[in-house]
C-alpha cells in the first residue's frame, strides 16, 4: 500500500478531501479489495476515537445533572420533605393557637369579622402559599382571576374551591410545534398547538379531525378533558376523566384523578371529590400533591 493511499484514507476519514478525491476513494473501495481492507481497519480506528468520546460526554452530562438537580432540588431527601411537612404542621398549629387565644366569650360579631379579615391578610402574606402569588399574575382560562383561598372560618363551596384551584393542565411537556411552518400541520399537531396556546375551541375541532384511533388515545383524551373543563363542559369532561383515571395505558392516569376531583367539586359532589383527592395524594407521582392536600384541608374544615 502506497503512502499516498494511506494519506487519502486518513483525509477521507477526516472529511478533508475535495469532491473529486472523495469520488476516487469511493471508486477504489468498490474495485480494490486490498485498499478496502486497509480502509476498513483505519475506519475502525477512527470509530474508536468516536466511541471513546461518548464516555467523556456521558461523564460531562452526569456533572450537569448534579448541577441541575441541585438547582431544582429534584432529589430532595425524605428527611428534607419530612422537615417541610413538620414546618407546615407547626405553622398550622400556631395559626390555630392564634385563633383560640384571640377568641373569647365576650367578643362581639364585629370583632369576629375583623379577626377574619386579619386571618385573610396573614394568609396572603404567607410565604408558603406561593401558588396564590403566582396565580394572581395569570388570567384563568375561563376568564376569572384566581380568588384567594377562603378563610378557615368561611368554608368554601365546591364551586369556589374549583374556581380557586382549576387551571387546565399546562401542556409544557407537549411537542414544540410552531405555527407558520411551510409544511401543512396535521390534526394532531393542530390539536397540540391550539391547546398550548389556550385556544380550546380550536383544539377540540382539531381533535375531532384526528383519526378514530387517535381519538381513542387516553393521553390525548386527558388533554381534551382539560379543554372541556376550560370551556365549562363539565359533564363531558368528567366522563372522559373517569376513563383516563382507570387507564393503565395513560401517562396522565394519576393527574386525571386530580382533575376529576376538581370537576366533582364544581358539581358540589364534595364527598366524591374527597375520595378522589385522598386517592390522589397517596400517589407519589402526583404533581399537585400539595395543592390537593390544601383542598382536602378546606373540605375537612368544620
Amino acid at each position: 500500500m502506497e503512502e499516498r493511499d494511506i494519506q487519502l484514507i486518513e483525509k477521507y476519514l477526516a472529511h478533508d478531501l475535495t469532491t473529486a478525491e472523495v469520488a476516487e476513494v469511493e471508486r477504489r473501495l468498490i474495485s480494490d479489495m486490498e485498499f478496502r481492507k486497509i480502509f476498513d481497519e483505519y475506519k475502525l480506528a477512527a470509530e474508536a476515537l468516536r466511541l471513546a468520546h461518548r464516555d467523556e460526554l456521558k461523564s460531562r452530562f452526569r456533572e450537569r445533572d448534579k448541577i441541575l438537580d441541585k438547582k431544582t432540588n429534584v432529589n430532595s431527601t425524605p428527611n428534607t420533605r419530612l422537615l417541610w411537612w413538620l414546618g407546615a404542621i407547626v405553622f398550622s398549629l400556631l395559626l390555630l393557637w392564634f385563633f383560640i387565644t384571640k377568641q373569647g366569650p365576650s367578643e362581639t360579631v364585629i370583632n369576629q369579622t375583623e379577626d377574619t379579615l386579619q386571618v385573610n391578610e396573614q394568609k396572603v402574606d404567607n410565604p408558603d402559599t406561593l401558588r396564590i402569588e403566582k396565580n394572581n399574575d395569570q388570567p384563568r382560562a375561563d376568564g376569572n382571576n384566581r380568588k384567594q383561598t377562603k378563610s378557615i372560618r368561611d368554608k368554601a363551596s365546591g364551586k369556589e374551591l374549583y374556581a380557586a384551584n382549576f387551571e387546565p393542565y399546562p401542556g409544557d411537556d407537549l411537542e414544540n410545534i410552531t405555527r407558520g411552518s411551510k409544511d401543512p400541520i396535521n390534526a394532531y399537531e393542530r390539536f397540540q398547538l391550539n391547546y398550548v396556546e389556550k385556544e380550546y375551541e380550536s383544539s377540540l375541532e382539531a381533535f375531532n379531525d384526528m383519526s378514530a384511533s387517535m381519538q381513542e388515545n387516553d393521553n390525548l383524551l386527558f388533554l381534551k378533558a382539560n379543554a372541556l373543563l376550560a370551556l365549562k363542559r363539565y359533564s363531558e369532561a368528567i366522563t372522559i376523566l373517569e376513563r383516563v383515571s382507570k387507564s393503565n395505558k395513560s401517562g396522565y392516569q394519576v393527574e386525571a384523578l386530580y382533575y376529576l376531583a376538581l370537576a366533582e367539586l364544581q358539581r358540589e359532589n364534595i364527598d366524591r371529590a374527597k375520595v378522589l383527592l385522598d386517592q390522589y395524594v397517596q400517589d407519589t407521582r402526583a404533581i399537585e400533591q400539595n395543592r390537593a392536600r390544601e383542598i382536602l384541608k378546606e373540605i375537612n374544615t368544620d
Partner: protein
Amino acid sequence: MRAEVLSEPSIQSSRLYVMEEVKTSANSLLQSLAAGDMSVLDHLYDAHRDDFLRWAGHRFVVKNRDDLLDAWHDTMIMFYEQVRDKKLTNLTCEIKTFLFLIGQRRLLKMFARSGKLELIDEFDANMNMDESINVLEEEEAKEEQMRVLTDAVNQLPGKTRDILIKRFREGKNIPQIMNEMGYESENAVSVTLSRGLKRLKELVTQRMSTD
C-alpha cells in the same frame, strides 16, 4: 431558544417570521456546535432536560428516573455526533422538537428491548418530520466491541491521542493543529498523525482479533 413573538397586524405573518427566526437561530447553533463550541451543547442540555424528563415520564411507564436520564444522555450524544460529523447541518423544525423525537425513538428502542409498555406508537404514526432525522437510525456497536475500541484509544500516549482527536473528532485541519499544538511545521503534524493513526489501527486490529 424560542424567538420572541412580534406584534404584527397579521398573526399568520408574525408566526411565519417567528418560524424563520427560529430556523436561523437553530442552524446557527448547529454551526457553532460543529465548530467545536461545547457550551452550545451544555446550553441545549440544560435548557431541555427537565422538559424531556417530564414529557417522557408521561408517555412511558417508568419507575426509575435514571432510565429517562440515560435516554436523555443518549439523545444528546446522538445529536452531537450528527452535528460533529456534519451529517446534520440544517433543521426545518426547532431543536427541541428534533431532540424530543430522537429521545422518543431512543426510549422506544429501550422499552422494546425490556418489554415495557409503549404508549406512543399512535403519536408516531402521524408525525410529519424533517427527513434528516432518518440519518440517526444507525446500528449501535455491540457493547463488547465498544469496550475494545475505547480501551485501544486509552492506550495511546497523550499527545498522540490529542492529535488524533483534533483531526478525526474535532475536524481540525493540519495548519490548525500545527498552531494549536505548537508543531514547527505541517509536515511534522502529518507524520505524527499518520504514525498515530497507524498505531491505533494496530491496537484495534490486535484487540479485535484476540477477542
